[in-house]
C-alpha cells in the first residue's frame, strides 16, 4: 500500500461554534503505480483532502500514511510557478537532481520547448499548467497529486492535455491521486475512482476502471458512467 488515508474528522474553521465539518470517516487507499481519482461535487472538500495528503494541513483527526521519505509532487489549481524565474528555472529549482537532458525532454514532451526561457506571466493558463506538470514530474515523485488540473481550460485544450497526462502517467507509472468534479476526466486518467458524498464527505462508492484504457468499450464506459452517477445521486 502506497497511500492510505483514514480521516475520522476534518473541520473547516468558522467563527465561534460555526465550524463546519468537511470530511468525516473518509477512507481510501492506493497501491503503487495506481492512479486514483477523487470525484465529487464542487465544495465537497476535495482540495482539503489533497492538502492533507500534501502535508499542508495537519488540523484533522485521523491518519494519513504516505510513502516514508518519498517524494511528493503537486499540481495546484493555480499553477504556482515562481513568476520571477523562467519556466526552465522553475523546474530546475524544484528538481535540483534532474539533469538538463531530462528537463529538456520533459519540456519537449509537454510542448513547452519554445517557452523554456520565458517568465511564467507570458504563458497562457494551459501552458502554465503544463509547466507546473513538468515541474511535478521532474522530481520523479513517488506520489503525484493533481488538483483539478484541467479546470477553466477550453474543452478541446482540456481534452488534449488530459490525454497527454494520462499517457505520461501510464509511461512513468507514477502513483497518482487526482481530484476532479468531472467524471469523464476521472475515467480518462484513473484506474480507480472514489466517489465522494456531499459534506461531510466520505467515500460512497469505489469504481474500478478497466485498463488498458484505450481498449475500453463504449458500453463499459457507459456502464461506469451510470454507476458513478447513481452513486452521486444516491446522496
Amino acid at each position, binding site marked *: 500500500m502506497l497511500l492510505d488515508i483514514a480521516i475520522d474528522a476534518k473541520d473547516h474553521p468558522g467563527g465561534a461554534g460555526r465550524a463546519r465539518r468537511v470530511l468525516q470517516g473518509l477512507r481510501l487507499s492506493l497501491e503503487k503505480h495506481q492512479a486514483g481519482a477523487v470525484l465529487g461535487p464542487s465544495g465537497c472538500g476535495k482540495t482539503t483532502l489533497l492538502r492533507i495528503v*500534501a*502535508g*499542508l494541513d495537519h488540523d484533522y483527526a485521523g491518519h494519513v500514511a504516505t510513502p516514508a521519505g518519498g*517524494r*511528493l*509532487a*503537486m499540481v*495546484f489549481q*493555480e499553477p*504556482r510557478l*515562481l*513568476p*520571477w*524565474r523562467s519556466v526552465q528555472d522553475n523546474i530546475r*529549482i*524544484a528538481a*535540483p537532481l534532474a539533469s538538463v537532458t531530462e528537463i529538456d525532454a520533459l519540456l519537449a514532451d509537454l510542448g513547452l520547448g519554445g517557452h523554456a526561457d520565458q*517568465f511564467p*506571466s*507570458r504563458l497562457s493558463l494551459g501552458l502554465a499548467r503544463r509547466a507546473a506538470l513538468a*515541474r511535478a514530474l521532474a*522530481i520523479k515523485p513517488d506520489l503525484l*497529486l493533481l488538483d483539478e488540473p484541467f479546470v477553466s481550460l477550453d474543452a478541446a485544450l482540456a481534452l488534449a492535455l488530459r490525454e497527454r497526462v494520462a499517457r505520461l502517467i501510464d509511461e512513468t507509472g507514477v502513483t497518482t491521486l487526482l481530484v476532479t468534479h468531472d467524471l469523464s476526466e476521472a475515467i480518462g486518467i484513473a484506474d480507480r475512482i472514489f466517489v465522494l458524498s456531499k459534506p461531510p464527505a466520505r467515500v460512497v462508492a469505489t469504481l474500478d476502471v478497466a485498463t488498458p484504457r484505450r481498449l475500453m468499450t463504449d458500453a463499459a464506459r457507459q456502464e461506469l458512467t451510470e454507476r458513478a452517477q447513481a452513486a452521486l445521486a444516491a446522496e
Partner: protein
Amino acid sequence: MIRLASFASILLLWFALAQVFDPRHLPDPLSVMELAFSEADSGALFEHLGATLARVAAAFTLAMGLGSALGYLMGRNRLANDILDPWLVVLLNLPALVVIVLAYLWAGLNEAAAVGAVALNKLPGAMVFAREGARAQDPSYDEMARVFRFSRQARLRHVVLPQLAPYLAASARAGLSLVWKIVLVVELLGRPNGVGFKINLAFQLFDLRLLLAYALPFVAIMLAVELLLAQPFESYVSRWRLDAARHRH
C-alpha cells in the same frame, strides 16, 4: 535630454546670479570649481570625501542589515512584532538631532557614536520596509515550496528574497538619501574630518566658496551612486514585473 537641459539651466542661473551678487554671498561656479580642483590637488578633498563616504557606507550597511532582519522577523512573527513595535514607533518619532547629541554625550565624540547615531536614524525606516515586504509574501508560493521540499537555502533564495527584493531596493534608496544627509550633521557636530566638518569650518569663516567646493562634489558622488547603483538594482530585481507589464500591452 530634457533632464540635461534642466540641469544646465540651473548652472546658467547660478552663473547669472553670481554676476549680480557679492561673491562673498554667491561665488560664481568657475571660482568654486577652481577651489575644488586645488583642494583635490592637495589631497584634502579626497581625504574628507573618503572619511564621509566610509561613514555613509558603515552606517548604511549596519542599518540595512539589522533593520531588514528585524523588520522581516516582525512581519513574520506576531510576538516579535508586539515586542518591537513600540520601539519602532519611538525611533520613528525621535528627531535625528536628539539621537546624535545623545549618542555623543553617552558614548563620547568618537567614530562608533557617529556611525551608530546615523544608523539608528535609518534603522526604523529599514524595519518598516522589510516588515511590509514580509507581510506581502504570497503564502501560495510558500506552500508550493513546502510540498516540493525546497531546502531552507532554496526557499530563501528563490521564494523569499525575490518577493522581498523590491521592498529592500526601495528601502536602500530611501535609506541612502537619508544617511548621507545625516552623516554631514554628525560630522559637523563632532568629527575632526569629513565633508560635514569642512562645512562647519566654512560656516564659521563665512566662506561660501569652501562650502560649495566640498558640498557639490559630495552631492555629485551620491547622485552617481543613486543613478548607477541604486536605480539599476531596483529595476533589475523587478525585471520580471516589467516583462509581465510589457506583455500585457
